């Protein structure tokens, strides 16, 4: 989203989307050095064309966001993908861009799987014939491996995921994100520019300490012109399996997601209770599909 200044590039310019962008000796003194070093430069024309080609095959892209960590983005993304893939006629792709804390492989029962290269790019790992998954988790050889990367390197991998993964024709591309409003989020919105982005689903828990971060995320969406499909309130109450009484473990002291959605004029897609067995896909699928098909037509 940062525009590079016009004018001649330095001799031996490494290229604005290379790993050396902004850091090579040749970059000293170049007016674009800062932009390139932050990985914020728009992709090269050739790269942009490659991204466009891949994303043309995606009918609807949905980002799953939250300002807050640990509210259930990955859980929701996984269940949503599974729910949508229950319709065998739909091709679903689940992309995990949480580079430091990739949860999707474990949630989908794909621990230990690796990515394979083919002539047409990286092959996603298939859970079902119509549900493919990609995550940095598949690129790590040990569960102890840490990805200790600053922003530009993370941006580079996200771009690679979008450019090089051969999903084929996809009805729904669900993108699970890390918490926050930083490199990963800016980059994915930027790189998805060519795709039809149905919008964002924002996940929260009921308490104010989550909502205060989620309001920032809603603001982020407005800033980058990302439509908001709606908000899901997760961990919304707990029913004791023994006495069936409800406890509010994460109390909605300021009215929960319902009040926030009213105030900010966004849809509340639903509330999901705390459930040690984990959620119920048809409920999420119903809420989601009615929104997406509504926006698509």
């Amino acid at each position, binding site marked *: 989203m940062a525009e590079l200044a016009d004018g001649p590039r330095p001799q031996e310019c490494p290229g604005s989307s290379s790993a050396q962008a902004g850091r090579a000796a040749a970059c000293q003194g170049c007016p674009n050095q800062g932009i390139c070093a932050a990985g914020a430069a728009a992709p090269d024309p050739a790269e942009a064309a490659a991204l466009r080609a891949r994303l043309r095959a995606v009918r609807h892209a949905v980002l799953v966001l939250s300002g807050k960590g640990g509210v259930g983005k990955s859980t929701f993304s996984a269940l949503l993908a599974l729910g949508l893939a229950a319709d065998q006629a739909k091709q679903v792709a689940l992309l995990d861009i949480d580079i430091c804390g990739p949860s999707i492989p474990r949630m989908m029962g794909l621990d230990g799987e690796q990515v394979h290269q083919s002539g047409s790019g990286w092959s996603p790992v298939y859970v079902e014939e119509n549900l493919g998954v990609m995550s940095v988790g598949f690129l790590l050889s040990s569960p102890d491996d840490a990805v200790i990367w600053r922003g530009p390197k993370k941006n580079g991998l996200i771009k690679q995921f979008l450019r090089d993964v051969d999903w084929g024709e996809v009805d729904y591309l669900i993108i699970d994100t890390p918490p*926050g409003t930083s490199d990963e989020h800016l980059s994915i919105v930027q790189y998805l520019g060519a795709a039809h982005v149905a919008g964002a689903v924002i996940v929260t828990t009921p308490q104010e300490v989550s909502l205060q971060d989620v309001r920032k995320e809603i*603001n982020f969406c407005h800033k980058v012109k990302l439509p908001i499909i709606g908000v899901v309130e997760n961990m919304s109450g707990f029913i004791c399996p023994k006495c069936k009484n409800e406890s509010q473990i994460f109390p909605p002291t300021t009215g929960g997601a319902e009040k926030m959605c009213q105030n900010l004029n966004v849809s509340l897609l639903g509330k999901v209770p705390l459930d040690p067995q984990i959620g119920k896909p048809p409920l999420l699928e119903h809420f989601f599909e009615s929104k997406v098909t509504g926006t698509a037509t």
Partner: protein
Amino acid sequence: MEEVARERSNLAGVRHILLVLSGKGGVGKSTISTELALSLRHSGKKVGILDVDLCGPSIPRMFRVQDNSVHQCDSGWVPVFVDQDKSISLMSIGFLLENPDDAVVWRGPKKNALIKQFVADVAWGDLDFLIVDTPPGTSDEHISTVEALRPYQLLGAILVTTPQAVSVGDVRRELTFCKKMNLRVLGIVENMSGFVCPHCSECTNIFSKGGGEELAKHAGVPFLGCVPLDPQLSQSLEEGRDFIQEFPKSSAFPALAHIAQQILDGTSQQSS
């Protein structure tokens, strides 16, 4: 030269610096940072909290000072005191935002610059403990914070997890981060470890159980204890109350007090 710079710096009066980390989001880093500060305060210590979560700063609200702003003095920024006592002081980007709903949409370099400022320019004065609350992950904020604190005596890091595999998986990576950055691991806390129904006392392991303890054993680091899910603790944090003072009979209290005691024991062993 470096010795002199260290002596004159804003961290010269800080006796122990500890980081609260987790690979995973939402496991209770800010909660543990807050309750640890409150517990240490109750043991007569002066404590500061530096909140380097720039996108989702939780600390100000947990002390009910979210509407405060930061002032300058000759040595830099004055931290926000939680009360008249001045025994707990805070610094967070939360105090620098004009509107609390403003999103901080910054890439790494800008975040790194503010973190360097936070480490160098806050006039903490004399503190027994400076607790650094971090966002989830192993990225810009974490690398920059550790590098900026390198010249000072970093006590070490407390790692927070919840019991289930998906959290423990991320915290394993955080342990690798600590190893690579030469950061001593003071121990692992297993948070949200079980819920006792207030109506019938049935215990449900909503987020499973034991993952944190097993990880500590596997990694050869101390296990600091299990903190149960406690609606009174959640409520207390929502309202910015002093949980340690006001809810000593609540289910999370014993574990939180025990964590603080182990930190105190560790530091008194160090000095003897």
